[in-house]
């Protein structure tokens, strides 16, 4: 089988151009505001039709039977969910684009999952919480996100991508999705969040990556701190 055949048979390979938000025929879907931009590709990025895989350590073993999602830090009530409990929470669909700091963008994604706002509401986030540290299953991997981005309407803890369960290599069973920041902030294999008053560098941020990571500002996006 040729490379091209392999690619075309990949169900995640996008054979069409990206749909416009108006073409998304899904009731109550949340449209990520950046998909309404005239040019949906941020500066310095190129569109990919594939679904590349990048991570720090490879997919960690995640046992679905003991999987747990915890909410801690500056909250009124600490929370812990099993996977079954988490999947029972109110879910939404989000139509969004996905921008990797390594300069590829995958447009036109539909994510299904629990809105970050729902988690914040259940936990009762204290007003002094200004940052969120997302905690992941891979060797203590973390990433820091300003609370205002974490709580955007299009941010969610996703368990479906384009209607199918998120494969382990793409961060399943549950990954954070923050469409308005570079994709490394969308923690794969997420196991919880910690609300913080002060910003605290996560895994890549400790290596000089940007503390916020907005792809649309700074001329070439907020990629690194050097």
């Amino acid at each position, binding site marked *: 089988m040729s490379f091209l055949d392999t690619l075309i048979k990949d169900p995640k390979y996008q054979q069409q151009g990206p749909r416009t938000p108006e073409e998304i025929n899904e009731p109550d879907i949340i449209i990520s505001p950046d998909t309404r931009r005239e040019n949906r590709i941020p500066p310095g990025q190129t569109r990919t039709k594939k679904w590349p895989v990048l991570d720090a350590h490879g997919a960690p073993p995640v046992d679905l039977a003991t999987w747990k999602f915890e909410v801690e830090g500056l909250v009124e009530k600490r929370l812990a969910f099993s996977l079954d409990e988490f999947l029972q929470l109110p879910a939404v669909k989000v139509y969004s684009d996905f921008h990797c700091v390594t300069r590829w963008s995958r447009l036109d994604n539909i994510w299904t999952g629990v809105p970050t706002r729902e988690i914040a509401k259940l936990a009762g986030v204290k007003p002094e919480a200004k940052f969120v540290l997302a905690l992941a299953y891979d060797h203590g991997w973390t990433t820091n996100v300003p609370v205002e981005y974490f709580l955007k309407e299009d941010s969610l803890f996703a368990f479906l991508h384009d209607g199918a369960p998120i494969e382990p290599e793409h961060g399943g069973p549950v990954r954070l999705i923050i469409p308005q920041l570079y994709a490394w902030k969308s923690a794969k294999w997420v196991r919880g969040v910690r609300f913080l008053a002060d910003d605290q*560098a996560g895994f890549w941020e400790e*290596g*000089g990556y940007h503390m916020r990571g907005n792809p649309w500002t700074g001329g070439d996006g907020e990629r*690194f701190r050097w």
Partner: protein
Amino acid sequence: MDENYAELMPSFPLFKGFTASGAKRLLDSGEIKQHEAGAVLLKEGDSADFVLLVLTGTLEVFVDREGQHLVLTEAEPGDVLGELAVLCGIPRSASVRAKNDAAVLEWSDEAFRTLLLRDPSLSQRIFREALRTLVEKERSLIDSVIDAQEEAHKSYSADS
């Protein structure tokens, strides 16, 4: 001791923006080695299976030619050495010895390649630095050729 190096590394331009824990992770991916003044860390012609980051002290990069000891450059804390031979799979192009007592971080070939593959920011910085060094060497080579031509021309003019 590692903690001191972890505090030190973010002051090197190559690791600007690193936190001490980010630097500690890099230290953990290699091995810290102490070398006394005069110790030879690698030899010209050897196969290249590790990359060095100078942590403290000064290293001398040299070649011995026809009985002459030729120092090509000196590497200071924050400089990376030996990465091109590792990446290109070619023998060492020069030897390196400690000019004074020095500490280095030694990454194995595999650890270094893994770092570059996993961390696009760091690989961009390391490649940029390596290419800058190559361009400087090329410029210096061109200057030497021009100087040599001028010398030859002067000598020819004087002869005639």
